[in-house]
């Protein structure tokens, strides 16, 4: 088992990379400008790719190098490029926060991280350094999920909602790199391409939204009620 033989140096490196990815998710949560969201997401994807490479190096999983490169390429370059294209097409630069100010969402995000930590502790059954790495991975994974859901819930703009979904997927990917690096490569690659298709579909849908519904802010998409 990879996790059973992890040393404290490796654990520190993993924790550094994972926690800074979480920090970038908070940057996404707290900024006002749509462009900063995309940049933070790109940086986060690069960090996760670095984590993948670190797991490959220390654990001896050669396939993970390929996945690291693919992640850096697709999640780190292609997806942000597509998203910036979408942002440029829209005529909004910054988001009006109707429900929750960025500062309050930062505080709520911190509370969610604590909640994720409690659950991760509950789910863990290993002791020692391996246990610490497990709790770290589970906490970061669950808190990025919760942060993604927070972004989906309080944001109006379509692009912010897409980014919330991508943060969700990033969280799962990060956790799976640490917890189950041996997962068959086929699944990981297919999920990666799946993400690309999702963003392409979203791009098309946003164009339809602009043309037919006239707005991409979900606060104004309220014709269907009841």
């Amino acid at each position, binding site marked *: *088992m*990879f996790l059973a033989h992890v040393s404290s140096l490796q654990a520190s490196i993993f924790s550094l990379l994972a926690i800074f990815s979480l920090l970038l998710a908070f940057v996404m949560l707290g900024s006002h400008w749509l462009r900063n969201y995309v940049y933070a997401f790109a940086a986060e994807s690069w960090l996760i790719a670095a984590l993948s490479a670190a797991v490959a190096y220390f654990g001896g999983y050669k396939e993970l190098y390929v996945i690291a490169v693919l992640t850096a390429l697709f999640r780190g370059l292609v997806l942000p490029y597509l998203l910036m294209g979408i942002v440029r097409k829209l005529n909004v630069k910054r988001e009006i926060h109707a429900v929750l100010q960025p500062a309050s969402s930062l505080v709520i995000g911190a509370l969610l991280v604590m909640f994720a930590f409690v*659950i991760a502790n*509950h*789910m863990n*059954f290993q002791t020692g350094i391996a246990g610490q790495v497990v709790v770290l991975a589970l906490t970061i*994974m669950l808190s990025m*999920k919760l942060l*993604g*859901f927070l972004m*989906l819930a309080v944001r109006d703009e*379509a692009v912010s*909602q897409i980014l*919330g*979904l991508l943060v*969700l*997927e990033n*969280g*799962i990917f990060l*956790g*799976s790199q640490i*917890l*189950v*690096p*041996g*997962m*068959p490569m086929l*699944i990981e690659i*297919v*999920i990666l391409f*799946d993400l690309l*298709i*999702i963003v392409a*579909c*979203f791009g*098309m*849908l946003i164009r*339809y*939204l602009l043309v*037919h*519904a*006239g707005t991409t802010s*979900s606060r104004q*998409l309220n*014709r*269907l009620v*009841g």
Partner: protein
Amino acid sequence: MAQRLMLVLFLAPLIAGALSLLVRRSRVSEYATVIAAIIDFVVSILLLREALQHRLTFLHNYILLDNLGAWVILCVSIVYALASIYAVGYMRLLDEDERLPLFYALFSGFAFTMLGACVMNNVGVYWIAIELTTLISTFLVGFEQEAESTEAAWKYIVVVSAGISLALLGTVLFYWGGSYVLGPSYAMTWTALHGSASQVYPPLLTVSFLLVLVGYGTKAGLAPMHTWLPDAHSESPAPVSAMLSGALLNASMLGIARFLGVVHGTSVSKFAHSAVVGFGIFSFVLATLFIVRQTGIKRLMAYSSVEHIGVQALGLGFGGPLGIAGALYHMLNHSLNKSLMFFGAGNAMRAYETKEILKIRHVLKVSPVTGTLWLLGAVGIAGAPPFALFLSEFTILRSGIAGRYRWAAIVFVIFLIVVFISFLAHFRSMYFQAGPEPQVRRMPGAVWRAIPMWLAFVPLLVLGLWWPRVLWNAFMQIYFGLTGGTP
């Protein structure tokens, strides 16, 4: 033999879709889709017979054909066939002849991905197949390119993608739990997960199962994750609504049923069943309350779908041979009945040019024959005998009353009464209440639209009066397959 059947099953919609895209003529794509759907229906019956005899795997254990999967394939292909016949008549009314080939291509692609999801042995690939169904059906939902349809498509894709990402998290956690038993790298098949489940740390198993339940429950339309369902099902064209309600929800319930089988026999099993019952009864109650005050005809049908998925979840959660048999029979009956209802609703919408119940009056004057079918279908979907849904709901009730979930069964009965009254009240106002006289117009394609309604109605009546022995044996086999016992 089975391998060739599987090949035909998947090639038929693929070829129909490709043909529609390449030859951009609407007539060609219509006929191709209908032929492919009928071929699929016949093949699925043969496949069910094969699967009941032995459990088959193909392609290095990636494709699995077992009795449960074959049953869902049958339900999906029935809806595919009925909906494609209806679509020929319905889509001609929309005046969008140039875009029709794209519609049929997406339609066949949608059927292909749903059929694919039913046979996936690898849990991860099953997730990917479900994700693909979402992506393709989004464009079907937003096909009419109005403001409301686009809004519905947007809500659909955002809510469902967020929901099934939870299911992916649950899958990863299941894999991780199993990796302590089976080693760091193993093929994530249903049987592998089931084999390792008893040795996985129980809190981990609990959290993973809950995540998977909420995730696939979003896709299946369990409350409170059902928020996309009324919008998507009401804004899409009627044949697509029938496919979404009748087929897609079943494919997602398949995932939940399989995961219940994975945790069967572990210490988490009781909690898992209670969770499923909880979601089921909550969906049922919530949908009933929304049905009472509904104003749109297709939203009414959509909430009825939520209600029936709640019933299916109740059946799976109650467990036992009666519960599982009831839930599986319910899948088939709901597919038939809901298709009938959506077809009737589509007819009414096109005849009256409105979606509101208040404006639909004197249906019998506009369409005497299909209107009667629609009314009888409404009686059936409210759960009354002699239609098939009564039998399946009664079976589920029987399994519930006897066990630990008596409270859920009692709530079920009470709200069944509420559903019956409110649903039929809407229909009473549409059929027998005084109002402005509608104009009777001849609309093209009426025969195309009437045939599937008859094809859906007759089995509904027959299955309501007679539960075939063959089906009962099939369900028992599936039950023992899920719970690992011997018949």
